[in-house]
């Protein structure tokens, strides 16, 4: 896995699409998770298993806080995908366009070939299996007549398989198979698989001037996020636990979260019911209900989240 990170060069582009911060590259996803404790949320459905929404795949959506954090750390920069797409494809003319289309076509062909190879291999396997079965039947029939001649299955498999292949393919697929054999390959070379690129650009072709995008706008709880992240916590969105952040002591794949963090403003009145609800819920799911806020009037103008104070509330049965 280490070598896969070598191809990643900071800063990393984060695509901003309709207000969401997305990452489309799996190696970038793992890289961010390992190096920067940014987990994000996978939101794409898995093509192999499209009828469920418990497990998701690429792309990964980042919380605005995460995006801002990465940008501030200069690990990443934000690309307005829509603008960049338009800019790039409106100016695409002549040779460039042709080249691009050619690259798409060749990619499609490659996919087509891979798919075809795959299916061919599969059918061969299936055929050989059928052939083996037939040979066995045949050999058992022979065995009943002449018990002495009982060849080991390994050697007989090859012989009879190769013999049977021709006959069975004919019988099984009939004219169709011959047609596909005769003209299948030329047709496939003509018609590449349609390929839809996940990004409309190669990573190398992206603008390298990250300064023009403004910082992502973040909710007020950002300071709490930064505060917790600076203390090596992993942070996930906390909607399902009714809080701002779900705070993990390590990688969320290995740990349960420890805190339900909710941010308040320094001078905000905190409704009693919110404290009760949060405390109750936190205790019920065996987590601490953590409230925190940033003292905006504190003098120390240091790192982000330095002026944050946090408290943990637990529901005590007396």
């Amino acid at each position: 896995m280490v070598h896969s990170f070598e191809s990643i060069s900071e800063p990393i582009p984060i695509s901003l699409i309709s207000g969401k911060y997305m990452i489309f590259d799996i190696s970038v996803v793992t890289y961010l998770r390992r190096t920067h404790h940014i987990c994000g949320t996978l939101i794409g459905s898995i093509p192999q298993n499209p009828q469920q929404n418990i497990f998701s795949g690429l792309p990964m959506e980042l919380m605005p806080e995460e995006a801002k954090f990465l940008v501030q750390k200069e690990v990443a920069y934000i690309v307005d995908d829509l603008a960049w797409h338009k800019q790039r494809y409106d100016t695409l003319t002549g040779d460039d366009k042709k080249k691009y289309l050619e690259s798409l076509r060749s990619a499609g062909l490659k996919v087509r070939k891979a798919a075809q190879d795959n299916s061919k291999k599969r059918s061969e396997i299936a055929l050989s299996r059928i052939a083996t079965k037939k040979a066995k039947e045949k050999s058992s029939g022979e065995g009943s007549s002449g018990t002495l001649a009982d060849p080991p299955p390994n050697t007989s498999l090859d012989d009879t398989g190769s013999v049977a292949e021709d006959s069975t393919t004919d019988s099984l697929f009939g004219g169709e198979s011959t047609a596909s054999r005769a003209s299948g390959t030329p047709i496939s070379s003509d018609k590449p698989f349609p390929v839809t690129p996940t990004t409309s650009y190669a990573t190398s072709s992206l603008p390298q001037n990250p300064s023009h995008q403004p910082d992502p706008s973040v909710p007020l709880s950002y300071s709490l996020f930064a505060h917790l992240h600076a203390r090596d916590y992993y942070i996930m969105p906390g909607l399902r636990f009714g809080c701002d952040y779900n705070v993990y002591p390590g990688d969320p794949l290995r740990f349960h979260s420890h805190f339900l963090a909710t941010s308040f403003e320094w001078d905000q009145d905190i409704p009693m019911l919110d404290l009760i609800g949060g405390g109750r819920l936190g205790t019920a799911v065996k987590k601490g209900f953590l409230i925190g806020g940033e003292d905006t009037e504190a003098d120390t103008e240091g790192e982000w989240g330095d002026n944050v104070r946090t408290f943990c509330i637990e529901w005590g049965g007396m």
Partner: protein
Amino acid sequence: MADTTQTAPVVEGDKPQIQQAIQPRPLSKFQQLNKLYALPAPLRTFPLPTFVPHNPLSLFHILYVWVSQTVKPQISRFDHLYEGLFSPETRSVHVTDVRSIRGLWEQGFYGKGTLSRSEPSWLDREKTKRGNKGKSTSEDNTRKRRAERQQTKWERARKEREAIDEKLLEEAAAAVQQREELNHVVPVASTLVEEVLDTVEVKEPIQMESKSLAIVDEILEQALERVESPVLKPAKLGWAAPVGPLELLSLPNSDDGLTVACFTEDFDDKYVKRFFAAPVGPMELLALPNSLRSYEPPKLPQHTLSKLPDTNPTDFPFEHESVTLPDVKINGNGSIAPNALGINGHTQPDEIEVVGGSETNEDTIDESIHSDETTETNGTPANGSTLANSRPSTPKVKRQKSVRFSPTVEKNTFIQSEPPSPERAVVASTSVVEEPLEIKNQEHLQLTLEEAFFLSYALGAISIVDPETKAPIPNQDLFYLLRKTSYFPPQLNPALSPDDPFMMNYVVYHHYRSLGWVVRSGIKFSVDYMLYNRGPVFSHAEFGVLILPSYSDPYWTSDPFLEKLSREKQKRTWAWMSCINRVITQVKKTLILTYVDVPKPLSVQEEQDLGIDGVLSRYKVREIVMKRFAANRMRD
């Protein structure tokens, strides 16, 4: 409703009458609850008589009642209103007299005991805690109780006495029986041993020094084998594989222990003493006899005893020593072994001594390796010899008694002729005296502002008293007083906004109360109100109500400032919603979002012209029942 008149006395709390009424068939718990909480509201109702179609006279009855009620309407309020004291400090209304407390709780579940979770039951709990459940705590009662207690104590002591006596008799009988059995077996065994000794005559001249014990042991072992194999079949049982926990625990702990136990080594007294020192390790402690049954201290010493009187009266001190020893450190037979050896050392090499040695040998092997002997020896002749002849059974029984009662319990032993010691009786009686006879009720009922106003304004069942003037507050004044108090800190200006906390809560409270729900505070589940179908004593709450202001009136969007203000007040986050919904679903309730449409504010004069009714009628309540639906979890 026909039973309203019946239940009226119940509310007044006339216990004996209820008892008599119940007498024929005791009511189930649910029936009792039904009876106690029959009235859903603190009101009197006057239902018309039932109409019986085939009895035309009932129609006249109905007519008569109806006419008389229209001519002379009866008031559904109680003649004597409940009383509450407005407390500005706690922003609630306190109810202190018992009648009001019980009445308000039993007829609609209003309020909360200040020292209880909901029902004001502190006094009952306190009484149960102190053990006197009955309400009558007069002197008479106390004296009677005291006498009863004394009597039961005597009775208990007598029973204990009897049990002990019975046990003693039983044990004595058992001892006699065992002795009889032994008398058959022991002669045989002793002759056998003699025989053995004759055969190994070579070793006879060796004097009994401690060194030569090993040789004797060898002889003894042989003798023992011979003795055992043909005659002592029951003893064989002792050699079975150790299976019980006690046996397993008493197995030798190491090789060292094994060698000693098996007597393969020449063992001098020192060694033995070291090994059989006082039990300090966990193993030794565990190997100690577990009960009286498994403990047989007198085996060896008594055996020697039984023979000794014939030979040497000087050995009596030893007997005494070895008898007392097991009492001090109840080390089972292991600790006795060295003692027995010591005895042997002093006596002449005689038949007696040989027998004693064989006993030790057998015992130590049996006890240390297969200590199931402890349970089984009772039947075996080897043990039988312990109880052998000559000694009367009584002293033995006495000793057993002293073993049975540990020093602490010993105080409790009773002398046959005496009643339980007077000291103890005195202690008991003093403890009775210490009991406080009267517990003052420290608890009062606390009504929230909405409850109090609903009771006062909507039901007219309570009169709320000003804490200073002690005069009842009229509803109009109370309305504004409560609205002011609902802010923290309480507001002083009379121009109150239409969305003050009291108004929002009261509108919703009134709404659900008038629909027949029992509404109680839901703060413990982080909602504004909980809705009970009949009341908390009957079932759990079904719904949690969240009050949400809705500034739908055009007034609130007429002005950018107001618009911003109202938007700010209506703002809730999804995380907040998710949190509360999770809490509510966790306790198996359903969340109701109750939106209150806030009207535009009125001037003081306008409000006063409208009156309370007019002000309240400007509010609208909308309800949305909320339930989380997860498509892939709720398929079935």
